[in-house]
């Protein structure tokens, strides 16, 4: 019979030998779990008393009317609605899957989104997590967060909690210039104010929507905000601005200061081979 597995063994060789012997001799006894977290993230998660439960997904695709992107003024409302609806439905589905698995939240959500001329699609993949051994909660209380498990652990150590994903997007027409303006500006270095104003307009609307979503979730802020902005590849006179992040709020009465230790790395091997040192 092999020696019992001792995770605190200081000798890595002994630890590996007993683990391999136990793994070969024993059958799995617990519930199967799936997770896209790295082993580092699993350890970070366990260090704060949470565990992974299930790999979960959410997907949605919403149509946008034909001819939407070519001519018009102001915001392209239907495109913004399609984006918001696709995110909302995908987030609801990933939360439903997590709740069904007995999880309290989803961390490390990979957000993939694509805006096409006639539809917008959003795909979310993440790992459902819960405090170790905790019971079920309703889907409405399950959070989805694009924070990594490491950042989720840091957030918890600081006394904060994630509440969900907040998204804001806007698509705005850049008005076409008159033929006279085109000819007049052709030989000048000149700002195209129509594009500048369009991107500012899209940005304001997107930020307003994302912050409104954060307030609706009863959050106090949004962290790790990602931004995708610029002209639409398939429409020369439309610009888009989309942003999303994780809504957070204080879980306790006050923020817990993290006091990092300063470290200086002494192994700067690259210098020994850096050609610049020969100059």
């Amino acid at each position, binding site marked *: 019979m092999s020696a*019992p597995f*001792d*995770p605190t063994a200081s000798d*890595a*060789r002994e*630890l*590996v030998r*007993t*683990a*391999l012997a*136990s*793994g070969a001799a024993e*059958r*799995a*006894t*617990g519930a*199967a*779990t*799936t*997770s*896209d977290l*790295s*082993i580092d993230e699993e*350890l970070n998660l366990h*260090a*704060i*008393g949470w565990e992974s439960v299930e*790999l979960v*997904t959410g*997907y*949605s*695709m*919403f*149509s*946008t*009317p*034909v001819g939407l992107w070519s001519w018009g003024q102001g915001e392209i409302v*239907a495109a913004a*609605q*399609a984006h918001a*609806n*696709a995110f909302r*439905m995908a987030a609801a*589905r990933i939360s439903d899957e997590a709740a069904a698995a007995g999880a309290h939240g989803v961390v490390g959500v990979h957000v993939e989104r694509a805006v096409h*001329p*006639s*539809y917008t699609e959003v*795909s979310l*993949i993440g790992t459902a997590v819960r405090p170790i051994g905790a019971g079920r909660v309703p889907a409405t209380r399950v959070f989805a967060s694009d924070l990594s498990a490491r950042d989720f*652990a*840091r957030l918890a*150590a600081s006394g904060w909690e994630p509440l969900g994903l907040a998204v804001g997007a806007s698509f705005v027409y850049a008005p076409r210039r008159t033929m006279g303006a085109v000819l007049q500006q052709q030989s000048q270095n000149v700002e195209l104010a129509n594009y500048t104003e369009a991107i500012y307009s899209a940005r304001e609307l997107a930020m307003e929507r994302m912050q409104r979503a954060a307030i609706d979730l009863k959050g106090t802020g949004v962290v790790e905000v990602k931004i995708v902005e610029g002209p639409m590849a398939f429409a020369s006179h439309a610009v888009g601005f989309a942003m999303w992040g994780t809504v957070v709020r204080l879980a306790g009465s006050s923020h817990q200061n*993290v*006091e*990092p*230790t*300063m*470290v*200086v*790395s002494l192994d700067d091997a690259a210098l020994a081979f850096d050609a610049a040192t020969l100059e």
Partner: protein
Amino acid sequence: MSVADQSGDARSESFTSGLSVSDFAAVLAMGLEPVGLVQGFCAMQSSSYAVGSLQRNLSPYREARGYVENYQCPHGMVAGEHRMWGQNYEQYWVEETWNQGFASASARMLDEATRLGAVGVMGVVDTQSTLAGAGVTEFHFRGTAVRLAGTDSAPSTPWTTYLSGQRLLKAFEAGFAPVSIVTAVASVRVWAYCITEYLLGGGGISAWSQDASTVEIDQVVRAQSQARALVRASARAQLHGDVLQGVDLIATQHEYEHGDIEIQCLLRGNRARRVGDFVPLRAPDATVRLS
């Protein structure tokens, strides 16, 4: 001569390894030693069904095996080109092709490892590439076979893992022993019916209405969701109570023609067995590097 018979005597006198120097050092610290860079190949040709040649209208309702959903046009006969029916279906023959490719290439890699007396194969890398035109896929697995230093005992089937070096050691420290890599594939085909076709093309929900509202494209959403569910169920069926860690789930979509969409989900991860009670680590120290 079988694929695995093509190794020479030089292997008994030296070892090969795909490990980085850091991982090599970590392997030695774990009491393991590399014995060979082992590989497995398999080239699979898919049937003609799998490469998009099956034309629409050939079979309105396919054999009911796996996931199938039918969609019926609400308009009645409008025109010859009108898509009066639609279908989502699981392409089990595609999944079988991939599963056979995975299994054969993986088994050949393991066969090489077994011949070397290995207890496991770490740092596995798998790739799939197209060979000789459409319909032929090459499956390639490679990894570093290792054995316990100082012993000749080896299990009949070595364990496999995508992890290597320090990350594998961390898994051991966390109370897990590697069992095997897990791969799974799900393939779902969408043949759009009229409503889906209109919506994908920017039409309104009520055909020809110029409806400016946005509508969820239910048929595609169902197909995408089912593909993700199928691939996870296939992976879960391989676990037998073990855990699956470090999963990489890749969903791709190919549109052969308007409204004829193939969705493929590929999943891979590390099956591991808990061999000790969970012992939480203490909360890690936060550090800031000064450079």
